[in-house]
């Protein structure tokens, strides 16, 4: 059941990405191009998703524990630190160039464009590098 429900959750997430337009880099880049041809649609994706999750999280948190886990495992780190802001800035650069963030990148795999076949392996390599960078002395202070 863990795997079946996990698959279903991923499927719904992917359908949401495609239906909303979030999985189309052209739409993402036109959203980010506020000084040019601006397509504000993606603000409605973020709005719809956050609002739905805001209500739904509070409903599921009323339960003692999640279905397949002993407790809700919500991030406890509250610090706005150098790895967070540096990482977010680097991510923003990549998002602004390619129009893909990680979810749409996975969902686009089966659509098989040359761009995604280059982007996805590069993203995985980048994640491995980013994981290592996180333990550099520059970023390794004040760990939780």
């Amino acid at each position, binding site marked *: 059941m863990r795997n079946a429900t996990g*698959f*279903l*959750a*991923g*499927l719904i*997430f*992917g*359908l949401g990405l*495609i239906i*909303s337009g*979030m999985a189309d880099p*052209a*739409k993402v*880049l*036109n959203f980010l*191009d*506020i000084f040019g041809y601006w*397509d*504000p*649609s*993606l603000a*409605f994706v*973020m709005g*719809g*998703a956050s*609002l*739905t999750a*805001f209500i*739904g*999280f509070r409903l599921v948190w009323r339960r003692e524990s999640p279905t*397949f886990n002993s407790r*809700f495992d*919500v991030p406890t*780190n*509250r610090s706005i630190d150098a*790895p*967070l802001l540096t*990482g*977010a800035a*680097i*991510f*923003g650069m*990549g998002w*602004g*160039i*390619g129009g893909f*963030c*990680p979810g749409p990148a996975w*969902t686009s795999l089966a659509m098989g464009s040359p761009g*995604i076949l*280059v982007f996805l392996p*590069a*993203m995985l*390599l*980048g*994640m491995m*590098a*980013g*994981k290592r*960078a996180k333990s550099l002395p520059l970023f390794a202070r004040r760990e939780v």
Partner: protein
Amino acid sequence: MEPAVLTEFTPWLSFLGGSLIGLSAIMVMGLFGKIAGISGITNALIGLFPGQSGPDDRDWRLSFLFGLIAAPLALMLLSGSFPQQSVPTNLVGMLIAGLLVGIGTALGSGCTSGHGVCGLARLSTRSLAAVITFLLVAILTTTLVRHVF
């Protein structure tokens, strides 16, 4: 300058699709007690490679990714046509973009789903700071790429 591809303003479809993304995040929280962050889920899988360690709940994360990959195929079965998208064709640009997205989301512990959708829904100021940062930098980057260089 005109964009390479014109797109249509789709507030209702985007809101509906966003609600599905939110529903998925609620399922992941209700079922597994976790944040539905795609970079985090992917990162956990990278632990599969030698020399790296990951969390013990890889099974559902892998299933989730399979679901994510299967979504366009499911949509094709339902509607009869493959979803449309327009991916940049500059492959060097896409290579650099992929590397930056990978490094940035691993270092910053999240992306549009983890910090964006789930973080904002939890009213996390840490996630809000990340979202503001990546949105501003992405807008700046797109502006430079399209209108300056």
